[in-house]
């Protein structure tokens, strides 16, 4: 729950400006981007996600480093990804 996981924005939704589709280690899900409303996100941007909400925008280098780190910690990240895969935010 406390893990911030990096995701790449792959699609913005015209009809739902508060949501974006992101790719997290191959898992694609909708997340809420309402807390970054001043950041003008675009596809290709990276965000740090907490419990279905993008909390900060990060650069690609940081995202890659964070992913390396998360993949290294093993089970806790696997659990977080599994939970994300079950998520159906709308």
């Amino acid at each position: 729950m406390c893990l911030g996981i990096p995701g790449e924005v792959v699609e913005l939704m015209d009809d739902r400006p508060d949501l974006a589709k992101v790719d997290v280690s191959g898992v694609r899900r909708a997340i809420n981007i309402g807390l970054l409303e001043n950041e003008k996100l675009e596809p290709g941007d990276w965000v740090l996600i907490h419990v279905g909400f993008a909390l900060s925008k990060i650069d690609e280098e940081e995202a890659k480093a964070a992913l390396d780190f998360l993949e290294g910690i093993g089970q806790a990240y696997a659990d977080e990804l599994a939970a994300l895969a079950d998520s159906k935010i709308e």
Partner: protein
Amino acid sequence: MRFVDEFRDAEKAQALAAQIAALCEPGRQYKFMEVCGGHTHTIYKHGLEDYLPESITLVHGPGCPVCVIPMGRVDDAIFIARQPDVIMTSFGDMMRVPGSNGAFFDANAQGADIRMVYSPLDSLKIARQNPDKRVVFMAIGFETTAPSSAMTVLRAKADGIENFSIFCNHVTIIPAIKAILDSPDLRLDGFIGPGHVSTVIGCRPYEFIARDYGKPLVCAGFEPLDLLQSIYMLMLQLAEGRSEVENQYTRVVPWDGNLKALQVIGEVMELRPYFEWRGLGFISHSALRVRESYASFDAERQFLVPGVRVADPKACQCGEVLKGVLKPWECKVFGTACTPETPIGTCMVSPEGACAAYYNFGRFTRERVKEATRT
């Protein structure tokens, strides 16, 4: 078992360790608290203490939200879950946290409908799909998750969803740090500040620690090098006689935090006069509750929870561990009566809890070796 030398930048780490060692004053002992459970996890996982000079001790702080939930609140949540037509929803981390009469998992087995969700928004979706049920979200966490709960309440209100509420257990990190600073048990030389909480609250709220208590604080990232770099920054401040708030994690943490997140928390929630923290007792203004203007989304008002305070189990020393007075393995029940499979205390439940982190990585740190060779 993974060991220290497995992380990519072991050479850089050795170099930083040498710089840290060069700043140690002979004969002086240093104690730094890492506030955040995520940091505790990294420290044990990579055996970072083995990189540090013997005169530097890392003390694990209270920043594990699951660990600080008192038993009485778990009991209250289970009480809500057992009311007719209720679906309780919760992050997976919470499922095994023991109340006085079992955890969510046990209540589920006994017939209560308790479901794991990834996000409060998933909980809201369950409410939409089950209009004849009352869906409650077990809201826990520090300032990293509080904005998500607040945003979800705002969404529920905007969409006119009337069968959704949150059982608000959000806590705030600053009063806990202050309680630790005021505690006579512990003398600290500085703090490693929580990285993700700071993305929300920024660095300013820590300034009193530097100004009024004269202790340096460095907001830190989560990788091993981030932590070593932060310890170096703390040591440099001490060597130069400074006490300031510094930000090592500028890649992610803005100095002013996330203003939108703070604004939505303030819209939906307000500070409680006091809140009980497991092991730490009652701390003033240390938690959030739902504002009266959102009363229909507040499970505490909707269900009239018993609110009975339950003392921690006598054998459990989580309080001392959370304050950093005891190391996990110094607890009487660590690894014997209390394990991740059958936790007595909360520190053993969450992977971010100091006890679980230590147990899972089972490393013989230098303290443990010393202790083992002494007897």
